[in-house]
């Protein structure tokens, strides 16, 4: 029983950074902007969070620093693509490359240092309940944030007027502009929100997952988050499902490798990717629904004529 609980907990820990980064990117893409710089913003969040936590000794300050770092770094992307109307794909890719390089440079002196770890939740009485206690009341704070974030984004996008406006901009920025909606302002805020989420996801890696700094420690998670958004056809609950499927198969294959089952490890390592794609493709079979949820103006620069 204890082993099961432990496995479930590790799955949640593996899924959380993917979920947060993907939910942030989902909001960005719903506004019609394609930011391929998730990996870069994530690693900047990781190094920012670690260094602030290490220098102040407080993982909470580290957490705030990770969010701020991601947001500030995404602002660079926003200025380039929204104010200067550069190509979003190229700018996003350079953001990732810049982030990986810059974080490596900033983190040189932190390599091998023990970092501050965010404590897990501990509610007397509740956390001690067998099985569900630790699952529901004993995880790290970012796990709860990730769930709240998903629910919050769902509510925001589909239940509020502002969310409707954001989706309309993603559907057609020219129509939105014609109605007098401040397209660029909405997109700025979306990109910064996405950056803050990616930063938080990076902070999860360096403050919870493995509380230390290792160069390139995001190890492609930003790219997985990006893929999740597309395969989840821009719907929050599917992003959640995708992140957890990925996390579950990831942890599962690690255990399988540890048991030494006679399947090539390369095949096992590729399983999480395969499983996630297959499941998400299956649930997005409905072409019509997918079409409705795809932001039609995704990736197109918007330059209003004046």
């Amino acid at each position, binding site marked *: 029983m204890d082993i099961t609980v432990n496995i479930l907990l590790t799955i949640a820990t593996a899924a959380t950074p993917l979920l947060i980064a993907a939910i942030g990117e989902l909001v960005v893409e719903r506004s019609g902007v394609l930011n391929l710089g998730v990996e870069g913003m994530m690693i900047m969040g990781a190094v920012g969070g670690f260094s602030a936590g290490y220098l102040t000794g407080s993982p909470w300050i580290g957490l705030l620093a990770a969010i701020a770092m991601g947001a500030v770094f995404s602002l660079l992307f926003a200025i380039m693509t929204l104010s200067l109307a550069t190509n979003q794909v190229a700018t996003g890719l350079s953001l990732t490359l810049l982030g990986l390089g810059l974080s490596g440079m900033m983190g040189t002196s932190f390599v091998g240092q023990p970092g501050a770890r965010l404590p897990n939740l501990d509610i007397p009485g509740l956390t001690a309940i067998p099985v569900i206690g630790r699952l529901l009341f004993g995880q790290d704070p970012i796990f709860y944030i990730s769930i709240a974030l998903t629910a919050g984004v769902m509510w925001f996008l589909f239940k509020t007027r502002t969310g409707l406006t954001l989706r309309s901009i993603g559907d057609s920025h020219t129509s939105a502009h014609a109605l007098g909606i401040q397209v660029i302002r909405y997109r700025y805020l979306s990109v910064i929100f996405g950056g803050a989420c990616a930063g938080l996801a990076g902070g999860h890696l360096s403050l919870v997952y493995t509380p230390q700094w290792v160069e390139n420690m995001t190890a492609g998670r930003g790219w997985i988050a990006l893929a999740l958004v597309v395969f989840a056809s821009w719907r929050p609950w599917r992003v959640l499902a995708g992140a957890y499927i990925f996390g579950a198969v990831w942890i599962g294959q690690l255990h399988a490798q540890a048991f030494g089952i006679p399947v090539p490890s390369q095949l096992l390592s590729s399983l999480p990717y395969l499983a996630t794609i297959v499941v998400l493709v299956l649930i997005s079979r409905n072409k019509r629904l997918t079409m409705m949820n795809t932001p*039609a103006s995704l990736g197109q620069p918007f330059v209003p004529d004046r």
Partner: protein
Amino acid sequence: MSANQDGANLLEVRGLTKTFGTLTACDHIDLNVAKGEIHALLGENGAGKSTLVKMLFGTLEPNSGEIFWNGQAVTITNPGFAKKLGIGMVFQHFSLFEALTAAENIALSLDDGSPISTIAAKARALSYSYGLPLDPQSLVGDLSVGERQRIEIIRCLLQTPQLIILDEPTSVLTPQEADKLFETLERLRSEGKSILYISHRLEEVKRICDRATVLRHGKVVGHCNPRKETASSLARMMVGNDVPTVVRAPAEGIETAQPLLEIRALSRKPATPFSIPLRNINLTVRAGEVIGIAGVAGNGQGEFFESVSGEVPQQDAASVRIRGKDAGGLSITGRRLMGAAFVPEERLGHGAAPRMKLSENLLLSRHATDGKVFVGAGGMVKSDAIYAAAQRIIKAMDVRKSAPDPEAAALSGGNLQKFIVGRELDRRPSVMVVNQPTWGVDAGAAAHIRQTLIELARCGSAVLVISQDLDELFEISDAIAVMHNGELSKPLPIAEATFEKIGLLMGGAEPGHAEHALETS
């Protein structure tokens, strides 16, 4: 200049100017709209009408000039401010969001925080009271163009505007839908609202408008009472000189002529969730005749053209036959080699590669059919021959351009269309299929294109024209068929065709045509 003092003018525009680079789209425009009148803004494509109303609605910023609203000078900086003043706009190119419902679309333009369900109920009530029934829950992507326009109108009316600007509202409607719109406009006028009505259709301006301001090349060339003018005097004001009339000699012996283009039981599944399937289309175009296909935009004309041209080949090779041979499985080039020629609707991207020269565009479409002339030994391109051919087409079609061999994108829409049509006509094709031959082309050039299409047919070719412009189809066709919801009606000989009959078919009123999905009032 001072503002109008008696307060009868709702809107006054003085010397409004807008330039884009070296082009002056609007040049010192003066305009008065009185309370409770329908005021027409007349002009050809590119005369500056849309630019003017965009400045009135705050989506474009004028370079100079003044706008007075109820006698007060105002600077309209954004559409939100225009709406606050009481200006509502029904756009020409719809400003709707396809992936959202009608109610959500309406909510987006209303600034109050009321819930979507309240807005939906209000929209439904208002739409029925004006006889423009609307289902607020329907997805815009699923709606016909006429239905989409209802959403635009209802959305505009819900803002209780004083002035409603309608930009080319009837270009997408059937004649019956247009009648319904005119009733609505007359009712709005009787309620004291002012309407600025933009159009290049003279008959409807004569019918409903109280006054007209005529624009040409960005300048106001006259104010008049359209009811006291004739269609040809209005046209002369708009165009600047007399428009040549198209002559159509009656076609003789068509029934026995050889069928050059045959379409047999052509069906096609919808390519995307929002597109139209083709349902069992049959049509024969014989040597010497022009067949027109009418229909409201988005009823499958685009899909039909793609299937006939070979942009999308068919499974069933016999579904398209050119000069008596199966062509359904062939590509565009294959069909061209059989003697067919095609002019698609989109000029830039389909009809021509925008960043390539006219001569290069000529080679792109005719390298196979005119291989011997344009391509020499070892696949080397014969630039001189191509250049000479391009110049011949430019001369024959009177294409106006700024350089000897400019890029396609450097030409105005009308001139590029003349070149594209000329490029195909130059081959003397035995089958010619044209989608929207004169969309956005000025009146003189349009008459020229129409005349050449008729002449091509009279020389023994089969000509098929798809158009939304009913006047055009009545001018050039020997028979008109109507496309509705992916089905094609039987061609009606021009002697029997009337606007009313064609309009009913466009609305889907024929046995065998699917009933319109929406409930009628």
